[in-house]
């Protein structure tokens, strides 16, 4: 701790008096809040761009993968395979991936 004599009190008071006044507080808070939101926007754009590019590249490969798969199936899996072409399946997976990015990006990790 400091000494707490008369000079210490004067020094503390001088530091207190040298602080910017409350009248500028609102403007300062506004500036900080504006800065607080901009790094997040940048982060969303960068991560979103990278994620979408990756999803698009992966999506172009999915169709060939689904085309190559020939599994003997029964029941509801067989029904899905009947109605869903490889293109539809690839699009669904792609939509799920993009949806995942959209869900995760606004959150702070």
């Amino acid at each position, binding site marked *: *701790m*400091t*000494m707490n004599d008369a*000079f*210490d009190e*004067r*020094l*503390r008071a*001088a*530091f207190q*008096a*040298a*602080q*910017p*006044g*409350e009248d*500028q*507080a*609102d403007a*300062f*808070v506004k*500036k*900080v*809040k504006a*800065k*607080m*939101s901009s*790094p997040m926007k940048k982060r969303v754009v960068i991560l979103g761009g990278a994620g979408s590019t990756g999803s698009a590249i992966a999506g172009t490969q999915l169709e060939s993968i689904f085309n190559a798969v020939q599994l003997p199936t029964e029941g509801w899996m067989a029904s899905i395979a009947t109605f869903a072409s490889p293109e539809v399946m690839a699009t669904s997976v792609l939509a799920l991936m993009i949806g995942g990015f959209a869900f995760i990006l606004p959150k*702070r990790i």
Partner: protein
Amino acid sequence: MQASDEELVALVVATQDNNAFGELVRRHQGLIRGMMARMSRNRALAEDLAQDAFIRAFQKIGSFSGTGSFKSWLCKIAYNEFLMAARKRKATDKAMEKFRGEVDDTEMPRDMGNVVDLDRALATLKDDERTAVVLCYSCGMSHSEAAEATGMPLGTVKSHVNRGREKLKAFFETAEAVA
């Protein structure tokens, strides 16, 4: 009843509430801006550093353990921000030289005892002395808190504070005698 700093911090951690953090900024802006102004001795730079310190605090708010006061935790972050800004200018010494050469004289002098400007008095201290004095007298940190914030040994902080205090006292006494 007004929420305490710790309650607001809990709210920010739980909900990322910008308004709750805004209230913390409002409460402590004077302290951090004043601290940065005394440390950097440049008003425009101090404003930027103070804003960056609050942004950093927002990003790291989850690491506030609540063992000490929020004010001390914030001052520690602000001090680190000041150091990082100094390092960005290649070397701390060169940066301090730069700050030294950029004393802001556009402000009206704030007198201590109606005689001299506090900033001019602080300019007579060495960098470490000024840091220790500002943390202890402006931020209200204890010597151990200042030692933890700066990474200096406790004994060194005590010496810097005492030496700085004596220099300031001598400066003000001389100034008052001349006046």
